[in-house]
């Protein structure tokens, strides 16, 4: 690349962003050239999403300069406009489609100067074309309402819209954890498309906690830590372990974390559902399969059937860890502490009043245990980064004494270090006799399980045990009937 006369699409010089006392970004220097695919990694709360918001102009930096296409600009609200004109587009970490609109109507929203003539037809074909280009073989109808789509389809729609044809061509597309709710096969399609996009001269900023994906697509990797860019180098200079170390998460990577330590002895069966899903005491049961094939419903059913709408129990039979944070988990007006203690209120309070002391104790304990990145648990939950919010939800459930824990893709947006920590905790809890039902879109996570049910069309297509739990077996079970059906 050296020697070419490329104009950078965006240049950040000495940029800093503060939220009150929190310095989310410090002294950031970043230049992105056409054709580059920049992978951004960092622990939860490292400042990745903040960086993205500075680049696309939604946040004004508190310090430093941002320039688009080599042109200097004062940091102000017009940046969003400049970014748009420079062909910068974003897919945000929290899905930002309008659920009440159809897919094609959502295409219209970021499209400022859309020609109005026969726009529905044009929009439908533009979305269709983009969906086909990025995710070949998908069956999403541009006329369907987003709310009716499963979360994976929604994420696909949002990505497709970001890559779709408009008056200003996409030159830099920022993807903030785009694969968090996609299953492996679909994610691979996206990665392939990204490579093609960059080969054609486009640029990508790709944020992910999946090291495999980063190494797959990134030509350059930027490592962030506590608001600083600590490393920024060609992808070839990194190794997987090196990258994890660079992110600076200190987790003892002991042997007991790996799947090899799988136990063979379990207690009696503690759960059996109509569709055949069952679990024994102390077992970690995985629910695999393509996203949207009824795993989430099965989990919800399991949870709802064992808890009541009418009373809360001091020793609940089952607790839930949500993956879709804003829909299923977070209480947006509350502090971190209140969010964390919700599930266990009746457990630690002896009377009908909230035992504040016990609440504080539980919260402090988990704050320490799981490393929620905040200095005050009284801060509002929304001031946390996405991954840290997820940690709060985790703590909420694990703090309970319930013998069964139901987890609906709980690691969405959780960084590698924390993931390992959580795996370890799950293992430890399982040893103590807790049972886990774990739905995940990540194969790595499923490989951690003792037994796996693969779902297809809302039914169990296969039950894998021990050495049968391999990526290949899961994929085969997920696809079999689809192929047969076609």
């Amino acid at each position, binding site marked *: 690349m050296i020697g070419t006369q490329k104009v950078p699409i965006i240049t950040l010089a000495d940029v800093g962003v503060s939220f009150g006392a929190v310095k989310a970004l410090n002294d950031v220097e970043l230049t992105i050239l056409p054709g580059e695919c920049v992978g951004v990694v960092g622990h939860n709360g490292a400042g990745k999403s903040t960086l993205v*918001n500075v680049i696309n102009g*939604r*946040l004004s930096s508190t310090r430093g300069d941002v320039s688009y296409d080599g042109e200097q600009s004062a940091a102000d609200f017009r940046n969003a406009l400049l970014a748009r004109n420079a062909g910068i587009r974003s897919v945000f970490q929290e899905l930002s489609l309008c659920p009440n609109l159809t897919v094609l109507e959502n295409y219209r929203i970021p499209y400022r100067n859309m020609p109005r003539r026969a726009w529905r037809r044009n929009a439908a074909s533009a979305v269709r074309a983009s969906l086909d280009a990025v995710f070949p073989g998908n069956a999403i109808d541009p006329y369907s309402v987003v709310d009716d789509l499963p979360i994976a389809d929604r994420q696909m729609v949002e990505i497709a819209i970001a890559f779709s044809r408009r008056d200003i061509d996409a030159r830099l597309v920022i993807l903030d954890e785009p694969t968090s709710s996609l299953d492996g096969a679909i994610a691979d399609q996206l990665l392939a498309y990204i490579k093609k996009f960059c080969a054609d001269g486009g640029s990508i900023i790709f944020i992910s906690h999946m090291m495999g994906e980063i190494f797959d697509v990134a030509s350059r990797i930027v490592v962030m830590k506590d608001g600083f860019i600590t490393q920024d180098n060609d992808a070839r200079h990194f190794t997987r372990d090196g990258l994890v170390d660079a992110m600076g998460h200190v987790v003892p990577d002991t042997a007991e974390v790996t799947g090899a330590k799988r136990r063979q002895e379990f207690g009696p069966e503690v759960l059996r559902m109509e569709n055949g899903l069952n679990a024994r005491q102390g077992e970690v049961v995985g629910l695999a399969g393509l996203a949207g094939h009824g795993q989430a419903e099965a989990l*919800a059913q399991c*949870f*709802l059937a064992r*808890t*009541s*709408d*009418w*009373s*809360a129990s001091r020793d*609940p039979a089952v*607790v*839930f860890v*949500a993956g879709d944070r804003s*829909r*299923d*988990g*977070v*209480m*947006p*007006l*509350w502090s971190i502490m*209140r969010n964390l203690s*919700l*599930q266990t*209120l*009746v457990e630690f*309070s002896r009377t*009908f*009043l*909230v035992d504040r002391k016990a609440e504080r104790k539980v919260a402090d304990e988990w704050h320490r245990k799981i490393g929620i990145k905040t200095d005050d648990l009284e801060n509002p939950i*929304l001031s946390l980064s996405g991954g840290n919010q997820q940690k709060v939800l985790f703590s*909420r459930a694990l703090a*309970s004494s319930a013998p069964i824990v139901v987890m609906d893709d709980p690691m969405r947006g959780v960084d590698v270090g924390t993931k390992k920590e959580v795996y370890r905790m799950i293992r430890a809890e399982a040893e103590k006799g807790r049972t886990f039902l774990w739905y995940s879109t990540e194969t790595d996570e499923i490989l951690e399980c003792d037994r796996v049910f693969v779902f297809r069309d809302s039914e169990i297509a296969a039950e894998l045990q021990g050495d049968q739990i391999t990526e290949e077996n899961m994929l085969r079970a997920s696809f079999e009937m689809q192929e047969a059906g076609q």
Partner: protein
Amino acid sequence: MVSRKAWIWAYIAAGATYIATLMVVSSSGGAGALLYAAFTFASFAVIVGVGQMFVVTLGPGNVDLSIPASMTLAATLSLKFMATDGSLVVPGLAIAIGVGLGCGLFNFSLIMLLRIPPIIATLSSSFLFQSLAIWSNRGLRIKPPEVLADFSTGGTFGIPNAAWVALLVSVLAWCVLEKAIAGRWILATGQNKRAARLGGVPVNAVRFGVYVSCAVLAGVAGFMLASFSGGANLNMGTEYMLMSIAVVVIGGSSIAGGNSNVPGIWAAALFMFLIVSMLNSYGLGAGVRLMLTGLIIVSVVVLASKRGRRV
């Protein structure tokens, strides 16, 4: 989002109106008398307002429009039962509470079983309650028993008895919201019902409790108001439909649910009484009075809001 201490503004507004009214108060005892009257009448608004607050806290679309009808029905049936007999006061109160329970249950079953949006469910049931009240007593006005009338119009330690009752109700409500587990549950349900259910909150029990207690409070308020004003009318309580919502929202509760405020209800209730007194005392006509009331409410709400929004 209205800031946490939004009710400060309601108190400032109430205080300002009080002082403005005092400017035209002639007699020396007028200031005290005005305050006494304000507390008396604010009490009824506070009692229904607390109930409405719980309902409103449940989130968008939750509001109880059947409060006036529940008040009327409870008052009509209990006063008819007591038939001015002083020995029947306790069963009379029990009847008012029972009617409240019934109304709340009915509302809740419409909302829960038939899944009718609360605004419409409570509006519909209010028509039914109104019919029941008409049918049961044909609008005849029966006086309350002597002891009851004396109690509700009287005062203890210089504070109206009605205000004592309202104070008791609001302290209880404050404890529930701030201290009790049930309060957390209500707030959680109001922010995100689905997430609350998945977080172990018994959402149906919460909604049940909220609608029923709102109706029970309306029943009690109706009972007291009828005792206070010398009998139950078919149109008593009409003004408490808007009033109950107004005191909740002016008092600083976030109508989006999940953030409520008991002290603010008192401020707002006093304010709503004093503003009418003030404008009446200044001899302003109904048109100007209504206009100014509206403008002042809006200004208080705008002042109480925080500038700017989250990114």
